[in-house]
């Protein structure tokens, strides 16, 4: 049982603020992904939870216990590091057994647990090897096995797949998801890869500039971005944004078209590229680039002088220079406040 509560945690490195008052609660056995661009403070937050970094302000609670003054070993956590941190002077067996031996577990139990986690991670044939004799993917497995063998309340992972090649990453991703779903741990997983985040997470915390911008399930984050940043960061290609002018209460004009929107002073119109289809009446879009991608065609256009992209049926092949009309799916239109950059209505 380990709920993690992060209360107003802030971190300064000298004059630089890496984290601004972060609040986040992670439910027991939840798979939480911290997602954000490089340098946004994901690692810092994870290390504060692990106890490898001291917060400048705020509290960290794990399983109902305040832990921010405790060393890492007393927090009931295990961590998988970006560069694996497999001990080079120990065999794979002793690496996995390391934490168990620190707990003074008897040899029979150590062997049992090491064997079981090694089987789980498919490295039982590597137990006698040293890390120098392992490939990156195998080291990665050892690092995860070492964390799992501890049967911790919480597993923390910092970009654990970022050093693997694309194919291996895909394979390990699916495997991690399976293994962690079966263990009863709460997981916090740091990544800058949105696909990884979407595929693994129960919930995603999108971070930007040392703040959590939105914490919600992957579909919610994708469909209803709480902030303009989330829409522009998640999705490939990202969300389209267009300026809108008010033409009546709840009525907005966008590139000559009128749409129902929020009752507000100012608003920005937003729609995802795949929520558009060609129609007789719609946003007039001047085609710039056409990229057939097989199942879809990615069309890059300008609408009222602003860049605008659409993912269309691959049977449609507009040519550069054409003007096409793109109609958004009405309930997929989103509105953002241009001043605060947060979602409206």
């Amino acid at each position: 049982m380990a709920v993690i509560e992060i209360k107003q945690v802030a971190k300064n490195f000298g004059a630089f603020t890496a984290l601004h008052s972060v609040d986040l609660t992670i439910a027991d056995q939840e798979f939480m992904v911290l997602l954000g661009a490089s340098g946004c403070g994901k690692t810092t937050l994870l290390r504060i939870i692990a106890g490898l970094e001291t917060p400048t302000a705020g509290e960290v609670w794990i399983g109902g216990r305040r832990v921010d003054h405790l060393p890492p070993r007393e927090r009931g956590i295990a961590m998988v590091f970006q560069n694996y941190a497999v001990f080079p002077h120990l065999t794979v067996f002793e690496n996995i057994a390391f934490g168990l031996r620190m707990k003074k577990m008897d040899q029979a139990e150590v062997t049992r647990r090491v064997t079981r986690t090694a089987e789980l991670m498919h490295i039982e044939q590597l137990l006698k090897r040293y890390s120098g004799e392992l490939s990156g993917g195998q080291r990665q497995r050892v690092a995860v096995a070492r964390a799992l063998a501890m049967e911790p309340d919480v597993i923390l992972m910092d970009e654990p797949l970022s050093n693997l090649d694309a194919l291996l990453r895909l394979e390990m991703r699916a495997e991690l998801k399976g293994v962690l779903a079966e263990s009863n741990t709460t997981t916090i997983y740091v990544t800058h890869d949105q696909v990884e985040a979407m595929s693994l997470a129960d919930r995603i915390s999108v971070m930007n500039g040392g703040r959590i911008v939105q914490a919600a399930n992957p579909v919610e984050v994708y469909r209803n971005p709480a902030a303009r940043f989330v829409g522009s960061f998640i999705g490939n290609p990202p969300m389209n944004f267009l300026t809108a002018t008010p033409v009546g209460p709840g009525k907005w004009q966008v590139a000559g078209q009128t749409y129902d929107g929020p009752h507000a002073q100012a608003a920005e119109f937003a729609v995802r590229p795949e929520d558009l289809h060609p129609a007789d009446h719609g946003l007039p879009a001047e085609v710039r680039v056409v990229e057939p991608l097989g199942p879809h065609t990615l069309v890059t256009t300008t609408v009222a002088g602003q860049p605008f992209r659409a993912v269309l049926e691959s049977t449609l092949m507009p040519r550069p220079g054409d003007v096409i009309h793109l109609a958004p799916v009405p309930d997929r239109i989103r509105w953002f406040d241009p001043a605060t950059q947060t979602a409206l209505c």
Partner: protein
Amino acid sequence: MSEPSVRRAGNRVFIAGVALLILWVLLPIWLLFVNALSAPAEVTGFPKRFIPSFDLASLSFFFGFSGVIDALWNSVKVAALTMILSIGVGAPAGYALSRFDFPGKETFRFLVVMTRAFPLPLLALPLAVMFIRTGLDDTIIGLALVHTTLALPFAVLITYSLFSGIPLELEEAAWTLGCNRVQAFTKVILPLAAPGIAASAVFAFVISWNEVFAAAVLTVENRTLTAFLLQSLDVSPLPLKFAGGAALVLPALFFIFAVRKYLFAMWGIANR
């Protein structure tokens, strides 16, 4: 002169320079060994044979000479103590430099190197006076303390580069797996650093083993081999000098050769 011939001339100068340097180092060593391993009668003879006659008379005379064994034993004791002291103090300092950011870190590193800027002859007189006052003169521990100040900068620099080469992530992994700082150090960092620390210890040993000035000034009865040889240089026969020289140089050469890769690491040369 045309371009290639200039380059060829440059090459020749380079090769000649290298040859000169090699001779500079190897010729005395060769002379030392040839003479130490020759019969006493051959030592004064000329020209030399390139391969010595492997007559052990000089060496056995040397080791039979009264006081030599005592001096040798003193040298070993002082060097061993120097080794323990300089690693005992130097390795923690190297670790702190590699792992912690503290105010004045750069100044500290600079000061470590600066300790070598004061020539020993300058310090010898005040040191001798101080040692006599505190009763440290003519003792093994007293001399070892002086040698430690000589060896310490190297011990700090070598272990600093050694610890810096071990990723902090390994230590952090140990912390998350149940270790406190000391346990993580002994279970993870020490095993990885041990060969390098041993090398640094050997280097400290050699520095003490070779040191003659402080040894000559600060000891009277308990002479180390270097001080003993210096003292008896004028009065002893030539074969004894050569045999003594060889006895001094051989361990030093052997040790330094064994640990050379760590000494290169200290100076930031690629670790091969």
